[in-house]
């Protein structure tokens, strides 16, 4: 994990889409980043947000997280786990084609 800081000017949006939250049973993560926004280059899609400022974001609902970020003014500090480009990374390790159960693979992996 890493701590990142973004600054913006008043009235300007941060430039990223927040998804997930406790109420959606999905971790808080960055979905989209507008190019040229203050978040560009700092945040990337698939990043998990585990902390907003000094608060632990892992138990927050979507709206709680949204409000907390909104309430940080023009300076935002986030604790994130880089997502390696979100599901794109995962798709690289996923087997191609239909899945087939092969227990001996598990044994060799363990």
């Amino acid at each position, binding site marked *: 994990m890493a701590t990142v800081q973004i600054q913006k000017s008043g009235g300007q949006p941060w430039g990223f889409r927040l998804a997930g939250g406790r109420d959606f049973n999905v971790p808080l993560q960055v979905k989209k980043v507008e190019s040229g926004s203050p978040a560009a280059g700092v945040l990337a899609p698939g990043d998990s947000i585990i902390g907003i400022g000094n608060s632990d974001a892992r138990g927050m609902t979507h709206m709680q997280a949204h409000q907390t970020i909104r309430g940080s003014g023009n300076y935002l500090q986030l604790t994130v786990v880089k997502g390696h480009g979100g599901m794109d*990374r*995962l798709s690289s*390790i996923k087997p191609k084609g239909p899945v087939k*159960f092969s227990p001996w693979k*598990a044994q060799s992996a363990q």
Partner: protein
Amino acid sequence: MIVFSIHQENPLENLNTAFNVAEQHLDIPRMLDPEDMVNSVKPDERSVMTYVSAYYHAFSGAQQAETAANRICKVLKVNQENERLMEEYERLASDLLEWIKKTTPWLENRTTDNTLPGTQRKLEEFRDYRRKHKPPKLEDKARLENSFNTLQTRLRLSNRPAYLPTEGKMVSDIANAWKGLELAEKGFEEWLLSELQRLERLDHLAQKFRHRCEIHEEWAEGKEDMLQSQDYLKCRLNELKAMKKKHEAFESDLAAHQDRVEQIAAIAQELNVLHYHDVQTVNTRCQLICDQWDRLGTLTAQRRQGLEEAEKILEKIDQLYLDFAKRAAPFNNWLDGAKEDLLDMFIVHSIEEIQDLVEAHEQFKGTLGEADKEFNSIMNLANEVQRLCQQYGLTLRENPYTTVSPSDISNKWGEVKQLVPKRDRTLHDERIKQENNERLRRQFAQKANIVGPWIENQLDGVASIGVAARTSLEEQLNKLRQFEKATDSYRVHMNELERYNEEVQESLIFENRYTHYTMETLRVGWEQLLTAIARNINEVENQILTRDSKGISEEQMNEFRVSFNHFDKNRSRRLEPKEFKACLVSLGYNIRDDRQGDADFQRIMSIVDPNNSGYVTFEAFLDFMTRETADTDTAEQVMQSFKILAGDKPFITAQILRQELPPDQAEYCIQRMAPYTGRDAVPGALDYMSFSTALYGESDL
């Protein structure tokens, strides 16, 4: 002798007086006139001479006469004198004799009134006699003698015959009488003094008598009452013994007083002998004392007897009391214990327990015969005491050796006897109850032992459905529904079992050795079964839904299911991270054994277990496996749709919504859409973009 008086200054009167006197006394008649004498310068010589010669004649004749008269007078005078002396003598003699006559018997009288004062008065009288009365009489006597002698002398001298006093008044008579007097007088004083002494002594003795009587009477005061009192009938043994000692002391005292009483009697006797004047009173008092003395003696002996008798009886009673105490105490304890046992509230839970109690009770009943005998013996002791007291008129006192009374014992024994049959009944009733309880236990157990295993079988059956390889979801669902139906129709047995359980509980039965199943465990099992069936049905239905919506083939589902179950050893329908990792690998996932691989796995974990519970459910696993690799921006799609409706504007109005959407969905959107606050906003503009992202848990910042 002629007596007259003259006044110097009055010659007339003097003359008158003189002429009168002469006429009266000298028989010389008045021949002159005083006035003439006085008034004339020179009185008639002849008349005067005549008158004066009358005087001369008067006196001269008188003188002769006088001489003759003198001579006669002289003789007569002697006679007169003698007669006077004789008279005097007679008189004196008779007076004296009279006095002697009176006094002599008085002196001869040697009696007194026997009283000291009386006798003292007599002494006083004698003293008076000696000092006052006798001396003059002695003088008289002397005078008498002198008188007689003088008289005799005179008579002799005048040649007269001697005087002979009258009869009885002779000198010798007088002398005799006087002698008699003297004789009588003699010894009178000594006699009187000795009388006085005697009387004094008597008086003193009488006083001594009275004094002793007083002391004695004081001592005897109340003794009769004391001796007569029957106080020893009312007292305790120790008090009686003290009374007896007191009586012994009294007896000594009495003996010591014997002397005194005898002395009093002796004094009384002496007083009698000495003719004490008030000997009557003395004798009466002495008699009273002696009578009382006799009575005291009798009473003393009687009291002694009474005391001794009472002592014996009280000692006997004491012994009885002691015996009673020694036996009554243990018996009383036994009674208390028996009562406690007979009233003992018991709680039994089995037939064996009640049987034990019945046996114990029977054993107890066996001891009652002996107890009755003991009871009677003890009561006899108490009764004997009562009888003795009644017989001898003693006051019944409480038993000093124990606080347990005969009535206590009697009452308790009565109670115990009553309680025995009661206990019989109680035990009998309890036995019946216990037998009933057994019946209820068996009833419940019988059914429970069928229902329990049935439930267990069902649970196993349900659990095994998902495990069996290669059954289609539909087939699974079918089987589950069959289980559901079977369970439903089996409910009636659970209800019956609940009824049996109620009966068991109402009878306060707490354990049942005929079955290891309790209603609680069966209920739990039953609910587990229902839950398992419902959950499994739900899961299968979800899986069907997932499969259908994601277009997963049956074979694929099989692979997923088999692989998951393979790693879900404990059939908990969830995997630990290690198991999950192995599962992924077994399905062909390339999770490397390096940092990248760990990072990848962590990423996957954060998706399948977002709440960090530590487990991966089959649903989450399935969800992950069927997730589209391409992240469709469904939020974007919805937003695009709204944009189209809004005519490419960044906001939408309620009007448009109502126009384009069904009414309730339009209202849903209108209510939930926030107002659009962009620069190009119009009144009533609604923000559909934040609404769309919010639907998918997304929001733009």
